[in-house]
């Protein structure tokens, strides 16, 4: 086993964590065995990859090139134990230790600062004339444990291969996120294209490494004042086509305006999907008839609801009531449906129902709506609702006017026996 440690020395913890995630995702290019266990570092088991990459030197060069491209300041260390690699990287030196037997000699010159000891303990050790790991190792273990604590002693033992040094394996994320801060607030959305395009590039690079694709990308823009706004870009089948996603994002950005400058952008991908370029779904309907359709649907409802307000979205249900205005209901998305579809046997119903019946003029007893109406059906008598005080007594007809509109009209059988328009056969 041979371990490569990438140590990202960054006082900004948040940025460091982000860097480590990026590094770990990128490191999948070299090995599937990766750990984020030791603080501030990404550990790669490269022993199994040396043959593939044609030797350590070639691998190191590739890593170095990649790191330069990523632009994350990194110290590296290579050793047969994870902890030794970590200590070497922390020391900032990168002379690799290849064999276990070379560990004592290789680790000896490292300064005590690489061990996480408290200041007070470090001073005490310096008082004993200890400045390096090698000098520390010469002290008796019992006394050392008393002075600097069990944890540090164990770290040393792990580094030297005298104690098991297991590292929990890191698994690639089920989704991808990345963050961007702008030094100056961006007021012109045109100027967002390049940095956001960069985020999309990073996303697609990760997707390629993981051989995955995504259906959704959410980009949250943080303005200097007020609430952050999230734009969602979606595709129908898993994609990692950066140019396509950028084009979609650009369209989304076009309609967006904000008085306040944007100071940050956050990209959050939807769940990563397996990507198979060779076999697009043959039948779209089949492909979508799985539960992902439900998720996609929720995304759409969220997307529309986010901008318009949830109250502006609804489903329609048919409801078993003889009164036409009560034979349907709006329902909020997500609320459960009234259940089994009741289909009363009745004469044709119009596609459009008017919110409130429109009172019609009559001339010589004949109802008019953009001209005189011709009744085309026998009366359908609807008398109902006596039990709840909202009773109706009406005769419904299908009528036609000179414009060619087919209308659903009724004559109230009570009061002034007026005519009303209630629907349109659209």
């Amino acid at each position, binding site marked *: 086993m041979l371990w490569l440690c990438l140590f990202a020395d960054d006082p900004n913890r948040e940025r460091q964590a982000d860097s480590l995630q990026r590094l770990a995702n990128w490191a999948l290019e070299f090995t599937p065995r990766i750990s984020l266990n030791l603080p501030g570092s990404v550990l790669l088991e490269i022993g199994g990859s040396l043959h593939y990459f044609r030797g350590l030197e070639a691998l190191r060069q590739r890593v170095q090139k990649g790191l330069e491209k990523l632009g994350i300041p990194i110290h590296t260390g290579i050793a047969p134990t994870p902890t030794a690699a970590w200590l070497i990287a922390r020391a900032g030196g990168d002379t690799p230790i290849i064999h276990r037997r070379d560990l004592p000699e290789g680790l000896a010159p490292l300064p005590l600062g690489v061990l996480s000891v408290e200041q007070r303990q470090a001073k005490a050790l310096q008082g004993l004339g200890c400045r390096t790991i090698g000098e520390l190792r010469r002290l008796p273990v019992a006394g050392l444990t008393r002075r600097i604590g069990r944890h540090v002693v164990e770290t040393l033992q792990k580094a030297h291969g005298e104690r098991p040094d297991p590292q929990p394996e890191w698994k690639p994320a089920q989704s991808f996120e990345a963050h961007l801060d702008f030094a100056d607030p961006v007021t012109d959305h045109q100027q967002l294209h390049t940095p956001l395009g960069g985020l999309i590039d990073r996303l697609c690079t990760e997707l390629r490494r993981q051989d995955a694709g995504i259906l959704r990308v959410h980009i949250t823009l943080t303005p200097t004042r007020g609430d952050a706004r999230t734009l969602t870009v979606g595709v*129908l089948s898993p994609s990692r*086509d950066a140019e396509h996603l950028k084009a979609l994002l650009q369209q989304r950005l076009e309609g967006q305006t904000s008085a306040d400058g944007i100071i940050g952008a956050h990209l959050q991908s939807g769940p990563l999907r397996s990507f198979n370029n060779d076999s697009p779904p043959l039948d779209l309907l089949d492909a*979508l008839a799985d539960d992902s359709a439900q998720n*996609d649907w929720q995304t759409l409802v969220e997307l529309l609801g986010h901008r*318009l307000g949830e109250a502006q979205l609804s*489903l329609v*249900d048919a409801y078993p009531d003889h009164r036409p205005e009560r034979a349907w209901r709006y329902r909020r998305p997500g609320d459960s449906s009234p259940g089994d579809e009741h289909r009363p046997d009745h004469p044709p119903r119009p596609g459009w129902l008017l919110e409130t019946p429109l009172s019609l003029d009559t001339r010589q007893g004949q109802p008019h709506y953009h001209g005189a109406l011709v009744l085309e059906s026998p009366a359908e008598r609807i008398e109902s609702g006596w039990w709840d005080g909202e009773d109706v007594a009406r005769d419904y007809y299908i009528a036609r006017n000179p*414009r*060619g509109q087919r209308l659903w009209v009724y004559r109230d059988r009570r009061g002034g026996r007026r005519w009303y328009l209630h629907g349109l056969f*659209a």
Partner: protein
Amino acid sequence: MEQAIDQLLARPGIWRASETARHTGARGEHIPTGFSVLDTALPGGGFPSGALTEILHDSHGMGELRLAMPALARLSRGGRWIAMIAPPHIPYAPALSARGMDLSRVLVVHPTSEQQSRWALEQALRAGTCAAVLAWPEHCDDRSLRRFQLAAETGNSLGLLFRNSLAAGQHSPAALRLRIDSDNGQRLGVRVLKCRGATPGPVQLDDRPAGALHEQQPLPLHN
């Protein structure tokens, strides 16, 4: 020979310069209108999926919804959704249900402004989750229509725009433009104004048994 070329062009791997979409999931798919005379008259055999179709009519209540209903009923049972953006009146659930629509797949969006409507229409078309998106835009310039067309291609969604017949004189990027000429409840007179690869002309949709076009009858489903 022509048939062979059509088959070739229908293959997903074939890119046609006339199409701006590069990423529609299933290019060249068509959704049968459910009226066999119309399906025969239209190349591809129905409404083009992943494109805009305009249905022009003089006023509401001319059979304009009836023309789309068999296709919508079928699509509502296909796993994706039917979105109605700012319908002019209440979509009457008993009628939709009687026409075979799966109501649990119909989303009605009530934007409060024309601008919101356009936005919602574009989003719903692009999302890929809607098999069809219906809208009644009041004013539509060429630029917004192109955006809708692009969104429909991206989401492989059937964009149905119901517009006033006056728009017939206006240029439109829609793949298909139909005008309702008349509707007497059973016979639906439709004119094809524009269709890629077909000659414009009138079509009388009266070839089916009268009952099948009658509101009372649930339509037969193809799947």
